[in-house]
């Protein structure tokens, strides 16, 4: 029963779309919702939901792809670590092709760096244990879903007494980014240009958020209450099948219609009110909040995680400080000479990540930026909204 089939039932999908349409017609205006999870982005594009809802619900993708929101500075630091003598950089697959200001980890590998891809952080610990003469650096990238796995790997490295394993933490936490998107004082304004106090005119008015099921499995539904309580915006924690997403859309539209802001848990088969306390505890044991730079959103207070001081021996930014500083300086000097710089400046990933621009509206989309030759991270990552639009929604179509 918990298998996906029933949550893809075409009869249910059809009935849900019809129900949403009725509610939007009763409301009298189209509704704009944002999802903030790469897996939702892909699910919405692949299942054709965006098309089914076209004209009455505008489904926007926000900063939900961890690869895409990784700042160019962090990417440059990763490349610098890969190029440092004696290091092995270990990462999840999507990271290797994302360009910083000077290039990608893949290009560093072509230049002789040892860059390896693993399925789990624990795989990086195993590799380090097998080659004690090399220093292994795991790139800690990802939201709350991924962080417990990295913490488990650190616990294992500690248990084994590994001296040749460390991580570069570029982890991000989602609630703070949502707040920055919503909060005018933090540079964002989900309510759009017509809200008092400003907001950019080209920013869509957001009526609510579809919240990520697996991030929420860790942090719990309650972590989002602030959006309803403080900003009057409804939210719905949703699973990843078409029925899950449509139920969330329907509930959000009904909330808008009723003028009622609540954060609902519509993925109760996996998500609890308080999340998973064990997962949260192990993350807390190793990490503490820090400011983090997000591509497209800028620096957001307390939206990142760094290793606690007592775990400094696992912190690549401490152990490899000199290599990082050198590498960054060299990267910057090289960036000014490369032709890639010009294209990169035309890249609109930042606007796409804020939901202000749809991927096909970017002048590079499908022309100089494709999954084979990506310019920006949203086209590189399989979870990026540009890649999802390109694969599933017609590559060259202008909207």
């Amino acid at each position, binding site marked *: 029963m918990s298998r996906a089939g029933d949550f893809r039932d075409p009869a249910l999908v059809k009935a849900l779309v019809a129900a949403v349409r009725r509610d939007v017609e009763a409301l009298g205006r189209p509704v704009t919702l944002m999802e903030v999870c790469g897996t939702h982005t892909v699910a919405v594009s692949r299942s054709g939901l965006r098309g089914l809802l076209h004209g009455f619900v505008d489904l926007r993708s926000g900063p939900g792809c*961890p690869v895409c929101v990784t700042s160019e500075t962090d990417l440059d630091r990763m490349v610098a670590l890969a190029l440092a003598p004696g290091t092995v950089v270990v990462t999840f697959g999507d990271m290797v092709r994302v360009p910083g200001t000077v290039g990608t980890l893949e290009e560093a590998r072509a230049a002789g760096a040892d860059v390896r891809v693993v399925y789990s952080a624990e795989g990086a610990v195993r590799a380090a244990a097998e080659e004690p003469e090399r220093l292994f650096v795991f790139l800690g990238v990802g*939201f709350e879903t991924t962080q417990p*796995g990295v913490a*488990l790997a650190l616990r294992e490295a500690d248990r084994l007494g590994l001296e040749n394993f460390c991580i570069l933490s570029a982890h991000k936490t989602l609630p703070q980014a949502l707040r920055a998107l919503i909060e005018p004082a933090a540079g964002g304004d989900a309510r759009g240009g017509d809200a008092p106090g400003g907001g950019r005119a080209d920013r869509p008015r957001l009526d609510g958020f579809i919240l990520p099921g*697996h991030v929420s499995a860790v942090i719990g539904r309650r972590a989002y209450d602030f959006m309803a309580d403080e900003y009057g915006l409804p939210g719905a924690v949703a699973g990843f099948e078409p*029925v899950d997403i449509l139920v969330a859309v329907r509930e959000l539209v009904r909330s808008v219609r009723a003028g009622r802001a609540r954060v609902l848990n519509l993925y109760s088969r996996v998500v609890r009110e308080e999340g*998973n306390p064990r997962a949260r505890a192990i993350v807390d044991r190793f990490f503490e909040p820090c400011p983090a730079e997000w591509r497209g959103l800028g620096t957001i207070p307390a939206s990142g995680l760094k290793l606690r001081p007592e775990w400094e021996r696992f912190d690549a930014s401490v152990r490899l400080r000199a290599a990082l500083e050198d590498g960054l300086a060299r990267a910057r000097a090289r960036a000014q000479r490369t032709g890639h710089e010009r294209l990169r400046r035309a890249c609109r990933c930042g606007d796409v990540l804020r939901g202000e621009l749809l991927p096909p509206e970017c002048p590079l989309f499908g022309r100089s930026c494709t999954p084979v030759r990506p310019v920006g991270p949203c086209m590189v990552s399989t979870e990026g909204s540009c890649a999802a639009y390109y694969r599933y929604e017609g590559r060259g179509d202008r909207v």
Partner: protein
Amino acid sequence: MCLAVPGRIVDLEGTRATVELGGNTLRVDVSLIEDPAVGDWVVVHAGFALEKVDEEAARETLAAVRRLLEVGSGE
């Protein structure tokens, strides 16, 4: 990157489980799960189990949606 997939625990030794996932089996760390047992459905992400899947809640969700929309089970 937050892609996580439901699978069923088919074998368990301490905090290491073998999980059947769409026809494949994977070794998975289940130390973040309360009282894991063979037969449990869990959501697996990057080598560890993130949470149990509550099958009863899954049934209830579907039943509630069908009731609301008056769509039969199609079975």
